[in-house]
């Protein structure tokens, strides 16, 4: 690999890893509260489409982000209603969300056929173009759109919120022992709602970042291509810690960027093995082969105040 190829691969790592990190920011809170939001794949897809649509109509990426996050809020609330209030199975509900989102975005996109031939406004670069000419770090870091930088900073804030604020402590308490939390007077249901809604908002923002970060297009047939599930993998591999998860997202982003290059360039390692990497690492982490991971104690289980 030449130096140029390595630089473009590193830049693509941030470009692909950024949306994953954004999605993971919300998911970690949902899972810490005990709810596995499997619907992030579908919510991300919806966010990606809404982002492109609003950017196409208004040319304003801020409006596009807000619009996407609002849709994420709505879908997150729906997911919370089903899984927390109605106590439906979280995984099945999530899978149905993904199925509905896949069909729904295809339908809506067919109506928005004008965006096909038109690259919509994307996020601007944070730094002036002249920074991009700095060798190596210029193209890798300073040619990144502003949303990538937001994605790189957010895990630190999320870590602070999770470990150093009352709200973060409460969310963790709800996920580890909802009965004790309820006995201590915490509004368990409300906290779960908040955490799940957060996962919806950030999943949608991750989708907006995916389409408006660099590409500026939407494509039918599942543009997110399983990235929501890669985030689920990253959350497990990262041990439910925002910073470690962000690191895992970057590693998976690097693998993604590498496999795309291998598909076109050819290589000794089959590119499919790189595509498997996030999932294999997750299996290894869950099986206890790499380090010790400890899921939130009520991970994936519904909470029923009437249970003794």
């Amino acid at each position, binding site marked *: 690999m030449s130096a140029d190829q390595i630089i473009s691969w590193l830049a693509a790592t941030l470009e692909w890893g950024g949306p994953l990190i954004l999605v993971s920011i919300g998911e970690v809170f949902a899972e810490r509260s005990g709810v596995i939001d499997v619907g992030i794949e579908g919510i991300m897809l919806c966010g990606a489409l809404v982002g492109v649509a609003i950017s196409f109509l208004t040319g304003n990426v801020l409006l596009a982000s807000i619009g996407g996050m609002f849709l994420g809020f709505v879908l997150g609330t729906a997911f919370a209603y*089903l899984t927390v209030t109605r106590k439906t199975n979280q995984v*099945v*509900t999530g899978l*149905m969300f993904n*199925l509905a989102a896949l069909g729904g975005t295809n*339908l809506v996109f067919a109506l928005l056929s004008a965006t096909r031939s038109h690259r919509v406004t994307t996020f601007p670069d944070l730094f002036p173009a002249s920074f991009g000419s700095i060798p190596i770090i210029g193209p890798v870091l300073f040619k990144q759109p502003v949303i990538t930088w937001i994605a790189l900073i957010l895990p630190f804030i999320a870590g602070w919120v999770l470990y150093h604020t009352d709200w973060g402590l409460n969310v963790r308490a709800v996920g580890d022992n909802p009965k004790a939390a309820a006995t201590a007077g915490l509004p368990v249901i409300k906290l779960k709602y908040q955490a799940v809604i957060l996962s919806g908002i950030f999943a949608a923002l991750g989708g907006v970042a995916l389409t408006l970060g660099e590409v500026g297009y939407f494509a039918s047939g599942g543009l997110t291509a399983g990235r929501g*599930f890669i985030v689920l993998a990253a959350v497990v591999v990262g041990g439910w810690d925002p910073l470690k998860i962000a690191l895992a997202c970057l590693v998976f982003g690097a693998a993604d960027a590498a496999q795309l290059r291998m598909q076109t360039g050819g290589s000794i390692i089959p590119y*499919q093995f790189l*595509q498997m990497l996030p999932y294999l690492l997750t299996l290894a982490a*869950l099986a206890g082969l790499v380090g010790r991971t400890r899921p939130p104690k009520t991970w994936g289980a519904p909470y029923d105040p009437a249970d003794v």
Partner: protein
Amino acid sequence: MMKTKKHPEFFALPGLGQLALSGARPLIGIFLGLLAGAGLIELSGVNPLAAYAAMLNGAIGSPLAISNVLVSASPLLLTGVGVAIGIKAGLWNIGAEGYMYMGALGAGAVGIVPLPLPPIVHIILALLAGAVVAGLWGLVPAYLRAFKGVNEVVTTIMMNYVAQYFTSWMVHEPQPMAEPGAFFPMSRKLVSSAQLPILMPGSSLHPGFIIGIAACILFYLAIRFTPFGFRTRMLGANPEASRYAGVNVKRQILFVLLIGALMGGVAGAVEVMGLKLRVYQDFVSGAGFEGVAVALLAAGNPLGVIASALFFGVLKAGGAAMSVSTGVGGPMTIVIEALCVIFVIAVGYGERKRLERADKPEKEDEEVIQHVG
């Protein structure tokens, strides 16, 4: 006044009303799903009644249409019943997508080789190969769940993707299974002795649905009347109690998850041997997840799987006809499927269990209690 009071009173009856309500809940959910779908069809500028009429006509309007429904339902029957057994035992086996890929690879590997065998032997060998490969694949999450206590939902989801990419690799060129010079990654074609027979000339009706319905009936009987089925239900009703009653819980979990893997493997094998005739890259594309939805719609009852798989078959086959004749986009079918399931679980879960527990124990639970006591 009288009219509005009538229904709540009817439902408040302890025996009949509750029975009617629990039976009606999935139907109410499906109705709401179809209603929401009608709203979406209306939004896209087509008369919903005309669209649903076209769908129904495309599903049961002719023998050919019915054969399409049966072909669409085949993999759903097989994956659905595998997932349903898991639900009975309180296990969520989401790996059907992966089992189908591995089953297809196993059947494909045996099916592309020209063996000097009569078709019936070749077909059985290929089906067995599919089941065995998928079973070995399913051993991983089953072992992790049974002996290490690792959440089966997440492992099976992750393994779906591993299987998908592994299949993609297997049907890409230097691999011996791959079709040389193909424009899309696919395996070589199955030799004719390994292809399932076509039951109706001019259609693609293969015997997959018969295998599927037979499996549903078989597992219904097994769950209802055998010690294995009893242990499975007991595990689902109360894992602690079954441990005290001397059930080998780990072995039971292993078996139940393996059954899901075997059925998924047969589903993948049948799909390739009866319909696709090759293993294509990404060919499952959500059919395994639909199997989960089918099992859920049936609330884990193997006989209910027959009904819900056929319902999905109607949606799929009819949906294709609907999109041709009315111009409603094909993806609408997927949306309606998902909406139906979401409404069914939103209407029917959670509360119902609690009601039954509080009022009178389910019949199955009663048996469990007697045996434990």
